[in-house]
């Protein structure tokens, strides 16, 4: 199910970077100021709902999941002709619960851990008992459509 999915602050940066809001009506530069870098983006999993204005509550450290999010291990295929980007790329991303989890939302974080995209997992809230694993299959998540 498609969802409203872009962090409002990041949405503002996209608009300002691609519309004539800069000096002499040139495109703004807001997008390039922050949020890019050489380090991997992260998938953050939350126990409360993310909204356009605020992030959800991180599930905290689990086996295979560092507090604040798990890094994408492989580059995803680039968008072409407006196609969506699907993730994860070549391998599932999996964590094993070391505490009782109720999983609600996901967030895609940029290299500076700034929130970019967000959405709810299908079927949320998803209960994951201690010792059980939660896994996002290859291409479980897609983002695009604008």
């Amino acid at each position, binding site marked *: 199910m498609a*969802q*409203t*999915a872009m962090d409002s602050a990041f949405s503002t940066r996209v608009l300002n970077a691609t519309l004539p809001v800069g000096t002499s009506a040139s495109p703004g530069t807001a997008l390039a100021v922050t949020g890019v870098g050489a380090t991997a983006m992260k998938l953050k999993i939350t126990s409360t709902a993310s909204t356009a204005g605020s992030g959800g509550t991180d599930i905290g450290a689990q086996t295979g999941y560092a507090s604040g999010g798990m890094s994408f291990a492989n580059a995803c295929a680039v968008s072409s002709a407006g196609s969506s980007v699907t993730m994860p790329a070549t391998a599932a991303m999996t964590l094993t619960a070391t505490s009782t989890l109720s999983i609600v939302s996901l967030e895609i974080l940029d290299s500076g851990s700034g929130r970019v995209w967000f959405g709810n997992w299908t079927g949320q*809230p998803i*209960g994951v008992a*201690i*010792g059980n694993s939660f*896994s996002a*299959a290859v291409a479980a998540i897609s983002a695009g*459509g604008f």
Partner: protein
Amino acid sequence: MIQCNGCGTTAFADCICPTKGLDPSVAGQHHPECDFTDLGATVTCPPGSGCCQEPHSHDAAANACPGGHEKAACPAPAACPHWQLHTAALAVEGLKVPSGDCPGGHHGLGVKGCAVCRPVTISVPRSSVALTPTTGG
């Protein structure tokens, strides 16, 4: 999809909450009859698989595990939920029930030979979450 990590038995969960007039994203929980209320219960490992066959909620048992009793005495011998479940199951089957509290040294997450924990993997399948900005988003 839910898959037993032990024997590989798989099951597919379906959220029926909308048909019950419940929006789990608002309620914060699923309808009692929905698979998502107890995902671990959707997998039924066949007899002889070596997986736990006790008629209880594996998720509840796992969440009740106090852990920390590998190669050691049970940290909660008088209240160990696994020992209680184990002995109760023996009684139901008419088998000899050991006396005393949990002796420890077994039954625990990650403990070899544990017959209580039955870990599963809950997989979110391909193309199941679409993030698409919408007007006003």
